[in-house]
């Protein structure tokens, strides 16, 4: 089981902010396909520039192998302050 979190406009496009995927997608790319399944707009946004991914609170670049119980967050371009 992997917990997925979406933020900002990604959550708007998906219609959810947090969802569990199981029994356990082995890789980030596989997970990304599952998250965007049937939602072309979300698929495009997830692959878009400036979207970062954090696995268990650490930013990762490129591919990653996901452990059981991993928390994966998709982070669109950030702006605070």
């Amino acid at each position, binding site marked *: 089981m992997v917990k997925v979190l979406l933020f900002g406009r990604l959550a708007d496009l998906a219609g959810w902010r947090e969802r569990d995927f199981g029994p356990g997608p082995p890789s980030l790319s596989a997970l990304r396909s599952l998250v965007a399944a049937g939602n072309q707009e979300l698929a495009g946004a997830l692959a878009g520039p400036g979207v970062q991914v954090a696995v268990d609170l650490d930013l990762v670049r490129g591919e990653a192998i996901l452990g059981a119980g991993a928390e994966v967050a998709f982070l669109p371009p950030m702006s605070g*302050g």
Partner: protein
Amino acid sequence: MIRLTEQPFDPGAELNGFCRDRLGVGAVASFLGIARGEPGQASALELEAYPLFTQNEIAKIVASAVDRFGLHDVAVIHRIGAIPPGEAIVLVITASAHRREAFEACDFLMDYLKSRAPFWKREFGPAGPRWVEPTAGDLADIARWDRDAPRGGKTAGAAATNE
């Protein structure tokens, strides 16, 4: 001190609390961001964070600022959730022996928060809600610091007993 809060905070009280008993500190710079908007508007903007991650990432940048600018201390207070017009969004306070470092660190931290800190901001303007992304200006602002060599401690000394 780094704090994310869904409740309004009191900038003056935070500033005074930060400054209490600082006999060795001559210089305190601060920046306060206020939600702009029309009177009567329920909320000017809404800020989302990934709380633990956001806190961790800000802590890393604060540590690098302390090191780079030779700061005595830093406070970052950032509101999350819905923010009515006129209320404080963010307060950054930096303390150092001399003013140049306090100013630069505060400026640097705000540039970071604007374009690289894990917040997602939705504004409620006349044309409806929209997600805000860093502007070209914000990106140019933060890029200044990537380019520059560390400056902390490099400026000419100020007077001995006050900043």
